[in-house]
């Protein structure tokens, strides 16, 4: 009987994990959400590279922008945008569960109100970023 035990390196019973993320829809969604971290990391590295180029001067900055204009980089950013949007939506959906309950008077604020409030702030901040970065002229 003990020969059927699959003991892992820790000596505990280790449940078989082969493709566990495909077993249930919610496990797959969980995996996708956690996977967005890899894309966030890539974008953070790109932003840091841009910051370094800015420090290095106009020539390096021009090189950075040229890299961003490469078709492969534009394709990568399309994927990064999808991942970021998925991360945003899942983040807002768990926000009511992650934060302490809010009350107006004695009535608790419903989850839906909290999610919608996050979406409104998201829309406003997104518009501000576009307005701030797009422009120039003079």
């Amino acid at each position, binding site marked *: 009987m003990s020969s059927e035990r699959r003991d*892992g*390196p*820790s000596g505990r019973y*280790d449940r078989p*994990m082969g493709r566990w*993320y495909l077993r249930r829809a919610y496990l797959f969604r969980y*995996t996708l959400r*956690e*996977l*967005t*971290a*890899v894309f*966030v*990391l890539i*974008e*953070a590295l*790109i*932003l*840091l590279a*841009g*910051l*370094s180029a*800015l*420090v290095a*001067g*106009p020539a390096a*900055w*021009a090189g950075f*922008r040229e890299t*961003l*204009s490469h078709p492969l*980089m*534009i394709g*990568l*950013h*399309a994927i*990064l*945008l999808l991942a*970021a*949007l998925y*991360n*945003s939506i899942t*983040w*807002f959906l768990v926000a009511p569960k*992650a934060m302490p309950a809010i009350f107006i008077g004695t009535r608790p604020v419903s989850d839906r109100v909290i999610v919608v409030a*996050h979406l409104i*702030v*998201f829309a406003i*901040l*997104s*518009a501000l*970023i*576009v307005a*701030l*970065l*797009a*422009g*120039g*002229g*003079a």
Partner: protein
Amino acid sequence: MSARRPRRSHEPVVWLLFAAGGMVAAMLLPALILVIGLAEPAGMLPQASLDYERVARLVGSPAGKLAAFTVVSVLFWHAMHRIFHGLHDLGIETRGNRYRFISYGFALLATLVTAGMVLIL
């Protein structure tokens, strides 16, 4: 070395940084990616939008430096925290400190590099 002294967990600290990074990523990242990675390279923005002088002035201001440092550094903490906990989901034994040091060490290193960049900008 008192036996009564409880072992402190680092988890609240890194969770706070993870949550801050999650909020930054959720609120700001789609718009940043849209502008920097898609709209601008595709020529959909005014010509001078991301010119060196303009971006250097924007990011180089005190508020810009603070914003750039905060946004970029917490993104690293967010990503590395999730990746560290994701290792467990991949069946990697993460007890002990090795993977913690690698994950959060990388986030700390990236934070220091970002701080350095912002300071000399």
